[in-house]
């Protein structure tokens, strides 16, 4: 789904919440994955010039999860390690988005190329 405006973040949160419920997530796990998604979607709008979120429901045997990819074709992140540091921001926010999303996820992956864009993938297992 497209992430272009703050209203899109509201819709996306609702969609992620519904999928998390469908996967049988506890209330705390639902809240964590929705919050992480909210942070990453906001990054796409504030820094990536808009982009999209791709949602995938996972099932490995009895283990269920959600995989969310946040993709933009923005300016990219020159120093990922620095961007993951709490309190570091180039946009006037609190600098908690990336690091916070990582802490709220079971798995976290980020790829970025300067001038080409950024892709952040998070997985939360039930």
């Amino acid at each position, binding site marked *: 789904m497209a992430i272009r405006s703050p209203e899109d*973040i509201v819709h996306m949160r609702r969609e992620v*919440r519904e999928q998390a419920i469908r996967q049988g997530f506890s*209330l*705390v796990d639902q*809240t964590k994955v*929705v919050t992480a998604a909210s942070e990453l979607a*906001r990054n796409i709008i504030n820094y990536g010039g808009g982009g999209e979120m791709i949602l995938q429901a996972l099932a490995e045997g009895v283990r269920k999860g959600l995989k969310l990819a946040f993709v933009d074709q923005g300016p990219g992140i020159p120093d990922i390690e620095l961007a993951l540091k*709490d309190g570091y921001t180039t946009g006037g926010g609190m600098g908690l988005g990336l690091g916070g999303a990582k802490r709220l996820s079971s798995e976290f992956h980020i790829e970025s190329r300067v001038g080409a864009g950024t892709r952040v993938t998070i997985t939360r297992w039930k």
Partner: protein
Amino acid sequence: MDRIPILKMGQFLLVTIQVDMHDQLAITLQDDLTNRIAKERSRGVLLDISALDVVDSFIGRMIANISSMARVLDAQTVVVGMQPAVAITLVELGLPLEGVHTALNVEKGMVLLRRQLAAGAS
């Protein structure tokens, strides 16, 4: 335009956030609330977030900002009704809302505000 209502309760203001916050709504609320504090000479703000099932760093920052702005206008803010799952998530996110007073519900928040006012007056 969407607006979050601000109710006057004696010397306090009650703000109940029931809708999913987005940027413009948060900014409007900050403007409205600071104006009301000045106009009503309110000494306290109760910010009821019991209907919010997600508080991300954007909304967390709004809560911290409201609390700071109110303090500069000589009013105390108490955030009431945070859902337990939201509390767990906020701390893990890295946003423990230090310096922001909290209470479990509006009633307890009101008691806290009264006590703070009494302590400040003596």
